[in-house]
């Protein structure tokens, strides 16, 4: 039961040609700049926009294969979380969640009971009767997620699900969304322009530029071997999963990092490659994190040079061309990497 899509849409001057495959239980993030065709891809999968070529298949069924087959949105087993949620303003949170069940033929009482269960799962049982306009951004997002999942869809589509939230709310909602996505057994496609969302939430990234897939792979693969400067700039994050005890985080894949703000439990630690400095000797002074690394690769981009470094943990560093020359960097060189604790960002996971 794999989702297989060859999405071809030609509209005006814009062309989308992207192949996607999503396994059950897998979360795939479609990442790309504005205008890359992410939303077009999502709308085609949802059935809101017919393909002009290619196909969409899930398991043995074909949803779209022009010119013969087109299953309309309301007959596809999908759930969609829209960017601004599009909760029905005149319905309560409970009625919003029950809407899909009712539309798919469930009785009133059954639908309401099931909706109540879903609201409980997203922690909003107390807000069942609330109208959407009285909910906070984070609450509305959870209602939208419950509404999309309540019909047990085979394909869950999320369109910039965190974009409408302020930075503080985002942290919690992102972590929570991650939990729900891990529990969800179906296929998930997450559309976002935010690399952090993509890397934290997705099992696999598909990077779209100008309507074409430019790169795909696990977040680590993509981050470590960016193929275009867009990918390098945006996806080139150092991202680690680990467990925090105070200001120390033990990384799942080995190594420890010191962070500035105490935390506890499972977290993501993120810092940009520009926060990493390279030294021929163990650095003295302020950096709290310093460890031995080996140069694995050097890539030159427009203004900087990105150095891939193996170590515990492996790390990416962006350094100036002058520094490259000073250090006479070659693959295989041994160096010290250093990151200030204050440069790290920690997110609960």
């Amino acid at each position: 039961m794999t989702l297989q899509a060859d999405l071809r849409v030609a509209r005006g001057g814009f062309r989308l040609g992207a192949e996607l495959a999503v396994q059950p239980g897998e979360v795939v993030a479609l990442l790309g700049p504005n205008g890359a065709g992410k939303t077009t891809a999502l709308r085609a999968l949802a059935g809101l926009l017919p393909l002009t070529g290619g196909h969409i298949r899930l398991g043995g069924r074909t949803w779209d294969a022009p010119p013969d087959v087109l299953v309309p949105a309301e007959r596809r087993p999908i759930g969609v979380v829209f960017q601004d949620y599009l909760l029905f303003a005149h319905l309560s949170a409970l009625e919003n969640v029950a809407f899909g069940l009712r539309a798919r033929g469930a009785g009133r009482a059954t639908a309401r009971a099931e909706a109540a269960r879903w609201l409980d799962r997203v922690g909003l049982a107390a807000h069942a009767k609330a109208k959407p306009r009285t909910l906070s951004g984070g609450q509305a997002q959870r209602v939208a997620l419950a509404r999309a999942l309540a019909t047990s869809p085979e394909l869950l589509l999320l369109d910039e699900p965190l974009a409408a939230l302020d930075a503080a709310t985002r942290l919690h909602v992102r972590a929570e969304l991650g939990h729900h996505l891990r529990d969800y057994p179906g296929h998930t496609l997450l559309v976002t322009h935010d690399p952090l969302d993509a890397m934290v939430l997705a099992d696999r990234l598909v990077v779209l530029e100008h309507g074409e897939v430019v790169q795909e792979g696990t977040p680590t693969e993509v981050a470590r071997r960016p193929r275009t400067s867009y990918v390098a700039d945006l996806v080139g994050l150092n991202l680690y999963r680990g467990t925090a005890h105070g200001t120390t985080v033990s990384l799942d894949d080995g190594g420890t990092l010191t962070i500035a703000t105490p935390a506890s439990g499972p977290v993501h630690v993120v810092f940009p490659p520009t926060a990493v400095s390279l030294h021929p000797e163990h650095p003295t002074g302020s950096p709290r994190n310093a460890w031995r690394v080996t140069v694995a690769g050097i890539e030159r981009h427009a203004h900087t040079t990105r150095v891939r470094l193996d170590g515990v943990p492996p790390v990416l560093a962006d350094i100036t061309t002058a520094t490259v020359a000073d250090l006479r960097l070659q693959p295989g060189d041994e160096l010290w990497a250093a990151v200030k604790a204050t440069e790290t960002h920690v997110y609960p996971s």
Partner: protein
Amino acid sequence: MTSTRRRARGRLPVVLVLPAVVGLAFLLVPLVGLLVRAPWDTLPEQLFSSSVGEALRLSLVCASLATVVCLVLGVPLAWLLARGDVPGRGVLRALVTVPLVLPPVVGGVALLFVLGRRGLVGQYLDAWFGISLPFTTAGVVLAEAFVAMPFLVISVEGALRAADPRYEEAAATLGASRWLAFRRVTLPSILPGVVAGTVLCWARALGEFGATITFAGNFPGETTTMPLAVYLALETDPDAAIVLSVVLLLVSVGVLAALRDRWISGPS
């Protein structure tokens, strides 16, 4: 330090306030004239006379039925104009407003041409089913609906075009057919527009004169609505005409005020 009240946003501009006050007076002073001239002493007597009661009852019934006809036909029409992929939508939209600019009497004649005994459609209605619409209460309802429907259609279409169609898409992704999405999502979201249109439509139907008297004629108890009664009373007994007008005025203002409080006061 000054004793004058502080204003956050400066004075109201005279170029707006002055015409606004003149406009208000222009609309309200004729009503005042009507109320001043009304023979208040004989008003209760006129009010409870059977012919006034009959005309008032007929007016209310016909205007309400016409409004129902307009809702049943006009809301789907508005939806088609706002959302349907019909070619020549702009022309259709303009055509829908024709009854607004057509003198109502001409509208009545046009209805006779179509639904009259010898009309394009009416001749078959008469020959096959024995249905004759002119000079009947049904004719009044049709004439009023013809003239009033554009008010509803324009109002609902405006609301539909302002409504975000993505909510319908959201409903579709939840498994709702277009009909269900319209009923459960779109209609509730444009309800204020529908209510405003309904009120306008009802008010227009209540005051309808030209198309009604031309198409449905004038017969007490059958087709004599308040405006027709007013017009005929004006021929012989202007006082009675004023009384009838005041009654029509009070009833309609009462109904509209009640509806406004309930529906059009904006989101709470």
